[in-house]
């Protein structure tokens, strides 16, 4: 019962991520794409947590932690590169 409910929630969130992928794919600027990746990553993290409880395997929470850490690393490092480099946006 609870598992089915959690699966439905995970399903809705993943469909949501498909829509957010639009921003990552066509976003006019590169910053839009990075934002899209960050958002899809947050949704993926939540899905990891939900699937952990659907499959009742608590060690997958480590994967969720790694997701959170690496999302921070990627977003910060890539936006630092974007702001520091002399690239003009070729929209």
């Amino acid at each position, binding site marked *: 019962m609870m598992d089915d409910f959690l699966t439905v929630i995970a399903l809705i969130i993943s469909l949501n991520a498909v829509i957010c992928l639009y921003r990552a794919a066509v976003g006019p600027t590169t910053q839009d794409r990075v934002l899209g990746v960050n958002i899809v990553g947050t949704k993926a993290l939540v899905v990891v947590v939900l699937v952990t409880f659907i499959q009742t395997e608590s*060690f997958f929470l480590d994967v969720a*932690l790694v997701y959170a*850490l*690496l999302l921070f690393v990627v977003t*910060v*490092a890539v936006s*630092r590169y974007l702001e520091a480099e*002399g690239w003009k946006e070729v929209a």
Partner: protein
Amino acid sequence: MKNLLALLFIAALAALLLYVVANMPPMGDPENPTATHVIPRYLEGAEEETHTVNVITGIILNYRGYDTMGEVTVIFTALAAALAVLGRERRGRIYAYVDRSGVPSSVIVRTMVRFLVPLIVLFSVYTILHGEISPGGGFQGGAIIGGSMIVFTTIFGLYESSRRIPQKVRFPLEGAAVMVFFLVGVLGMVGGGDFLTYAWPKAAAALHPALVTWLTVLVEIGIGLGGAMVLTSILFCMIREEEEIAVVA
């Protein structure tokens, strides 16, 4: 015409693949050919023979130690190739790339990174040291330390990070993975077993029952440190610029 031909070829390939997939045995079925020969042996014997609770670690470090040693050597070779193309920085010189643009990094991000780097490193140490019990291990932990070094380098600049992680620290640790693996393998030979049998099998049990586990953890630590330093060095030699900005005596 060329496009049409390529499309046809891809369609044929897709049809072939789909046909093969349709005829594959169902996933997770215990009757599958892959699950009937070697897997039961691993699942039954691993905990007793390799003294690791996580069977995956037992398989990749013990049963298939040769493969893993090859993989570790491949990572080391990647570093060697990157250094062969781009060159290592000269000792005593300090280079800059990201911090050269004149745009200082954000104070907020700096404070956050300062706050989070200890946590990231601690988590990766946990991943490395608990590789034999929970998922994770040397490769994963090394990659996470590499990630923390990447964020440190991009935020504080190559000038700072190449001073904090100097070449004389990185140089011996880059080879740590291969060296530790090799030494542990030779330890097995000294004890009268074969290469990579994890300590002298007869003496180990008499000396201490957990000795094999500790050797596995030792190999994990080696792989983790080596992987992290290889990633850091690759990043450094990629973002370095030829023009030096300072000379340290």
